[in-house]
C-alpha cells in the first residue's frame, strides 16, 4: 500500500531535480515555467496528504485549511507587520503544527474514521475565520501586498527566481520526508498502517506516531502555503476551502494512496487538468468526479500503482529474456565440442 523507499527512489528524485533545474532553459515561455512552479507547490500539497493517507490510513479534509494557515500566517506577518518571510516561514509552520496537534491529539486516539470528521469540521471553521477575522486576513476580499522572499537584497519575484526557490524548497522538503520514511520511524509507520494492533504490541506508540504523521503532514501543507502567498502576493479564503481539501484527497487517490510517485502524478493532474479543460470550463468538476470513481474501481492502487505494475511487467519480461539468453548460451556451450 505504501512506498518502499530505497536508494533508487533517492536517485530517481535526484535525476528528476536535475532535469527540473534545466527546465527554464528548455521551456519556450514563462507560461510553462509558471505551470511548473504551480506543479511543484502542488506536489508538496499532495505529498503531504499522501503521507497521512498512506501511512496512517486516515483521511484529512483540512489540508486546504493547513495550506491556508501557512499562507495567512506568513502573509499577514509580512504584509501587516513587516516580518521577513524567512522568519514568517518557521512561524507559520509552527502555528500550523500546533493547530494540527490540537485537532489530532484527541481524535487520533479513537479507532475509526474520526479524523475525517474532525478535519471536515475544522476546515469549515477555518474558512469562516479566514473571512471573519478581517483585521488580519482582509476578509472575503483577501490579503494583499504580500512581499516576496528576498535573498541578499534581491527580490525573488520574477518567474525564474521564484521557480528556483520553489525547486529548492520542495526538493529539501521531499528529501527530509524520504529520510523520515526510510528510518526506524518510517518503518514503524508502515507497520502501524498495515497491522495497527501488531505494531502496538511490538512497541510502537501508535497514537504518538499517528499524531506525528498528521503534524508533519500539516506542516508540509503550510510550507506550500508560504510559497504560494509570497509568490502570488495575494491570498483569499476560497483558495483554502473544503473544495480544495476534497480535491487534494481526490488527487492522492488518483495518484495512488501511499505511492511516492503517485503524489507527483496527482499533482500533475491537479495542475494540468484546469488548463486542459479551460475551454470546457464547466466540465472540470465532472471530470474530477468521474475520474475518481473510475480510478477507485479500476486502478485501486491509483495511476501510480498502475505505473508500478507496468514497470514490474516490463522488468520481469527483461528478466525472462535474460534468463532465456543465459539458457541459450548454456545450451550452445554444451553443444560446442570441447577443444
Amino acid at each position, binding site marked *: 500500500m505504501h512506498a*518502499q523507499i530505497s536508494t533508487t527512489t533517492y536517485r530517481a528524485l535526484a535525476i528528476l531535480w536535475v532535469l527540473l533545474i534545466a527546465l527554464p532553459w528548455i521551456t519556450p515561455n514563462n507560461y510553462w515555467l509558471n505551470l511548473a512552479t504551480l506543479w511543484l507547490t502542488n506536489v508538496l500539497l499532495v505529498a503531504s496528504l499522501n503521507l497521512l493517507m498512506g501511512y496512517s490510513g486516515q483521511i484529512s479534509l483540512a489540508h486546504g485549511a493547513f495550506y491556508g494557515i501557512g499562507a495567512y500566517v506568513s502573509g499577514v506577518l509580512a504584509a501587516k507587520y513587516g516580518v521577513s518571510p524567512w522568519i514568517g516561514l518557521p512561524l507559520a509552520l509552527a502555528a500550523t503544527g500546533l493547530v494540527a496537534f490540537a485537532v489530532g491529539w484527541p481524535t487520533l486516539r479513537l479507532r475509526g474514521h474520526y479524523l475525517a470528521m474532525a478535519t471536515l469540521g475544522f476546515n469549515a471553521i477555518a474558512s469562516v475565520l479566514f473571512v471573519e477575522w478581517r483585521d488580519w486576513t482582509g476578509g472575503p476580499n483577501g490579503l494583499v501586498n504580500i512581499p516576496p522572499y528576498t535573498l541578499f537584497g534581491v527580490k525573488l519575484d520574477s518567474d525564474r527566481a521564484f521557480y528556483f526557490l520553489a525547486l529548492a524548497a520542495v526538493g529539501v522538503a521531499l528529501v527530509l520526508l524520504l529520510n523520515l520514511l526510510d*528510518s*526506524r*520511524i518510517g*518503518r*514503524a509507520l508502515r507497520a502501524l498502517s498495515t497491522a495497527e494492533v501488531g505494531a502496538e504490541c511490538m512497541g510502537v506508540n501508535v497514537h504518538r506516531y499517528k499524531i506525528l504523521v498528521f503534524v508533519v503532514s500539516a506542516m508540509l501543507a503550510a510550507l506550500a502555503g508560504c510559497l504560494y502567498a509570497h509568490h502570488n502576493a495575494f491570498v483569499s479564503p476560497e483558495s483554502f476551502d473544503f473544495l480544495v481539501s476534497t480535491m487534494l484527497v481526490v488527487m492522492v487517490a488518483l495518484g495512488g494512496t501511499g505511492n511516492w510517485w503517485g503524489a507527483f502524478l496527482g499533482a500533475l493532474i491537479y495542475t494540468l487538468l484546469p488548463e486542459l479543460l479551460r475551454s470546457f470550463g464547466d466540465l472540470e468538476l465532472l471530470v474530477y468526479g468521474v475520474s475518481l470513481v473510475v480510478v477507485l474501481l479500476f486502478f485501486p492502487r491509483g495511476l501510480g500503482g498502475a505505473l508500478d505494475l507496468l514497470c514490474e511487467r516490463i522488468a520481469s519480461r527483461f528478466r525472462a529474456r535474460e534468463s532465456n539468453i543465459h539458457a541459450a548460451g548454456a545450451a550452445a556451450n554444451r553443444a560446442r565440442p570441447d577443444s
Partner: protein
Amino acid sequence: MIAVRGVSVQFGGLAALSDLDFAVPRGTVKAVIGPNGAGKTTLFNVISGIQAPTSGSVLLDGEDITSRPPHERVRRGLARTFQNLQVFSGMSVLENVVVGMHARLHAGVFSALLRLPSGRREEASARHRARALLGRVGLAGKADLPVSALSFGDLKIVEIARALASEPTVLLLDEPTAGLPASEASRVAEVIRAINTEGVTVLLVEHNMRVVMSVSHDILVLNFGRRIAEGDPASVRAHPDVITAYLGADIEAAHCA
C-alpha cells in the same frame, strides 16, 4: 514472571473472563488450554494490553501494568504473537522482525530527518541481529522475501522471531502451531524449548496436546472464562473437570501417553 489477579472481562452481558487468578513463575512454560470460546485469546489481550479488564490487575515482575498501554509493556519485556497473524504486509520478513526491535532502538525524528550516522549504524546492526534471529528459527533463507510469499506456518514462525527481537522476558504465544502439519508443529515446539532454555518465561495458548505436553511445565485449563484446573501435565490430564469439558483432548492425550 507474569501474574493475573482477579481479572474479569465483561462484554455487555457476556463474561469472557471471570475473576481469574494465576501466575507464571519465572523461567517456566505454562500452557493455557480449553475449548473454543473459553476466553484464552481474551486473556492474552488483557495481558498484552489491548483489552482493558473490567476488574482485576496484571502484574509483570511484581509491577502493576494494568493501566499501561501495550507499547509500554513491550518496553518492560512482554512480547506476543497472534492467533490470526498481525504481520506487516508490504514488508519483507526481515523488516517485520526489525519492527520487533522498535522498542530497543533509539533513533528519533531528528536522527531520521538528517540521516545521522548514529541512526544508520543502529539500523545496520539491527538488521544484522534480525537476520541472526531468523537463522535461529530456520528462516534465514527467506529473510528478504515479502511476507506475502510465505506460508501461514512460516509466518507464525516469523511472528515468533519478531516477538523475540524485542528481547522479552515474558513471551505470549497465541496458538503458535495452529494450521501447521505435525512436522512443523514439532519444530515450533523445539523453538519454544530453546527460547525457554535461554531464560524466557513462556505463556502459550495451544490446542495441540502433543506440543502442550512436550513443552509445558504447567498447564492452566479455562472454560467459560474460569479456571477449572491448574497444575502439571499429568495431574491436569487426569482431572475429572478437564475430562468433562475437553473430551477430545483426553482421547488424544491418552494416545500421546
